[in-house]
């Protein structure tokens, strides 16, 4: 491969430079029906799972088909999307905030033709390229993070855990038979890139071993004071280490104070946490974001640990399914998972979902922990 210059001259980086131009102006990407009716929509209706029509004051209609997106998309796949958009939706397409692809058409016929077309497109292993669903009282796409595809701190994979979970919950993606929306999110370490901390069900990668300390290199690769300051529990102290006869500046970790957050590793590559047996999955549940009926809620830790069982994480998916099934069977119409758990009481949640309660689930992090304990005699026997 021969280097082809774009025109950029490394010796004169400022020459002819264009900066601070921001994104392209969004309006040029609106389909005509949107440009015309923006801000003048009257109502919408979900015609069938994945298909929504919006009706404007003008009487114009906008049909949208929501197709499941693998957030990691190849150029080839996107070109296929472009091809579909050119064919059916005047060359416009959008992505949703949860990484689904929405094709917009201005007539029901086009919309139905599009549906038939995309459903027929499959990958070699038989997976849909463009599964349709995710609207209304269903489970939509899982927002997720990089995992083993690209990040240095994950405790599990992101794309893989998402794939197996969506396979498990596919029926709920395709059908709107849940009491309310159920949002599953995934983050591969507790930096939690996403809104995992307030999802109905959250899949979280978690380390359980304190950092290894690479004494021999640490002082060369890291700023020791930054590493020390990074630790939220003050578990890291400076230390002089004897190594091959030489005294090296390094750090020591008080393992009892470590909560495996990986913040030290973010600051210092000589303190890796990753470990085959230590790393795995935490499941959280009961969060929400919308202000509908009540305030947004944080997700709660309901399973403290599930080992990484590559490639299909069967324990994790079975546990998630248990929760979804119990919720689906027991909750009231319009009731989100967290609202259900609060109504029946968390003690009943564990009973109905058949999950084991362990001491790990009791908050012991800082003062606010107290507010999660029970300060009343009002409880249910289980």
């Amino acid at each position: 491969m021969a280097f082809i210059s774009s025109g950029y001259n490394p010796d004169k980086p400022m020459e002819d430079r264009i900066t601070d131009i921001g994104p392209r102006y969004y309006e040029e990407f609106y389909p005509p029906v949107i440009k015309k009716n923006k801000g003048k929509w009257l109502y919408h209706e979900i015609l069938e799972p994945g298909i929504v029509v919006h009706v404007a004051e003008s009487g114009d209609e906008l049909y949208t088909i929501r197709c499941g997106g693998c957030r990691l998309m190849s150029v080839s796949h996107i070109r296929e999307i472009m091809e579909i958009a050119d064919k059916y939706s005047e060359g416009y397409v959008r992505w949703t905030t949860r990484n689904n692809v929405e094709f917009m058409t201005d007539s029901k016929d086009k919309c139905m033709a599009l549906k038939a077309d995309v459903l027929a497109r499959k990958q070699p292993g038989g997976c849909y390229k463009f599964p349709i669903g995710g609207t209304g009282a269903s489970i939509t796409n899982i927002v997720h993070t990089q995992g083993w595809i690209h990040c240095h701190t994950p405790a599990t994979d992101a794309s893989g855990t998402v794939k197996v979970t969506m396979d498990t919950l596919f029926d709920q993606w395709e059908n709107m038979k849940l009491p309310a929306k159920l949002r599953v999110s995934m983050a591969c370490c507790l930096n939690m890139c996403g809104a995992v901390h307030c999802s109905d069900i959250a899949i979280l990668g978690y380390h359980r071993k304190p950092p290894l300390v690479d004494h021999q290199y640490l002082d060369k690769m890291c700023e020791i004071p930054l590493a020390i300051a990074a630790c939220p529990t003050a578990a890291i102290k400076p230390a002089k280490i004897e190594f091959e006869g030489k005294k090296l500046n390094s750090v020591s970790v008080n393992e009892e104070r470590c909560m495996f957050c990986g913040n030290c590793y973010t600051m210092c590559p000589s303190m890796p946490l990753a470990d085959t047996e230590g790393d795995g999955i935490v499941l959280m549940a009961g969060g929400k974001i919308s202000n509908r009926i009540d305030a947004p809620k944080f997700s709660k830790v309901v399973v403290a640990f599930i080992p990484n069982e590559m490639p299909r994480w069967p324990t994790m998916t079975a546990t998630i399914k248990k929760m979804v099934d119990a919720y689906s069977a027991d909750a009231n119409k319009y009731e989100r998972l967290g609202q259900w758990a609060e109504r029946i009481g968390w003690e009943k949640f564990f009973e109905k979902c058949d999950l084991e309660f362990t001491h790990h689930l009791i908050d012991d992090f800082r003062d606010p922990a107290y507010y999660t304990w029970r300060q009343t005699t009002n409880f249910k026997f289980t």
Partner: protein
Amino acid sequence: MVEFRHKTPLIDQLETGPWTSFVSDIKREHESRMENPKGIDFQFNQDCCDDLLGVLELSYEHGRTHWKHGGIVGVFGYGGGVIGRYCDQPEMFPGVAHFHTMRVNQPMGHFYSTKYLEQIMDLWERRGSGLTNMHGATGDIIFLGTSTPQLEEVFYELTHNIKQDLGGSGSNLRTPSDCMGQSMCEFACYDTQEICYQLTMEYQDELHRPAFPYKFKFKFDGCPNCCVASIARSDISFIGTWRDDIRIDQEAVKAYVGGELKPNAGAHAGRDWGPFDIQKEVIGLCPTQCMSWDGSKLEINTPECTRCMHCINVMPRALRIGLDTGCSLLLGAKSPILDGAQMATLVVPFIKVEPPYDEIKETVIEPIWDWWMEEGKNRERLGELIKRQGMQKVLEVTGFKAIPQMIQEPRSNPYVFWKEDEVPGGFKRDINEFRKYHQR
């Protein structure tokens, strides 16, 4: 048949099941690159996708990542937009030994024309891995993996040919993002796309040149349904709301009651929930109990309504948001590192959202930034600073009056830190004077 250098028996098992498979998709891209029907002169390793699958397979064997810390890479004059990434087994996987990502500032609302997509796909196929994230969790288009030398080239082509800039990373303003809002949604209380765009443009300097203590995020939700989850993950969350009455079409209400219209726009069609019961499903679930229905007329007692959206969501053809619209501003959301997650806290209950947004910029964004830049510690998010210095400090720096809308409940501890000038006589007292009346 295109060949795959690495055997991937584990991840191959992710090619079955109904949901779309990213493994199949990466394989497809590998095939496309190797076949190269268009004869592209790849500027980044042609076999990178194969090596990426290899690294991933190795991680599936080990249960551990094989990516190292990123070094400091980027484009000249910008402090963000690129995440450096190196493989920790470069000999085994030379195609991804260097595999930096670039964040491209997505167009608002994630709307695209195929013309534009064509341009950026061409660019990234040639100069990168041919893999993307559509989209990153913040909202950017993510170009997944290229080499250091290509960074400037991509940037040059992006800006010169596609008129498109990078997004944010590092301790700066991150790429703002929004829900689809008025473009398609009848619930939107303001134009999320327009303000998102205008503020992105206004604060280009803050976005590209890290001068903040840590990252800072804006997100724009058109209404309290919060489809872009701003309340959970933005330092300033803009959430649409209104001050006047919900508009009621009484005929449509009757149509819902009569079963002609499907509740919640058909969202529950997949199960038989029985006939729609307005009393139970709307009136009874209204959190403030401010609605009444006498069989022919629906009434809402506006001062009691908290605009939670429930009734509107259930009967979108009968109920519409008010006409006096604007947004609420909430501050300080963030994920759990370091002190636990924070949801955003309401600071401005209502503000008009009208270009050029001077009030929002001058009374909120800029005073808050000044304070945070002055007082925020290294890697301290706004929410953490508010927790550390107290809501009172937010009032001081913005000049807002304390109002009960800012709180869920008043303090239950009586530990008020009175200021000297609030207490008659001040704090200076004379012990000898005191001792005249109170012996030791």
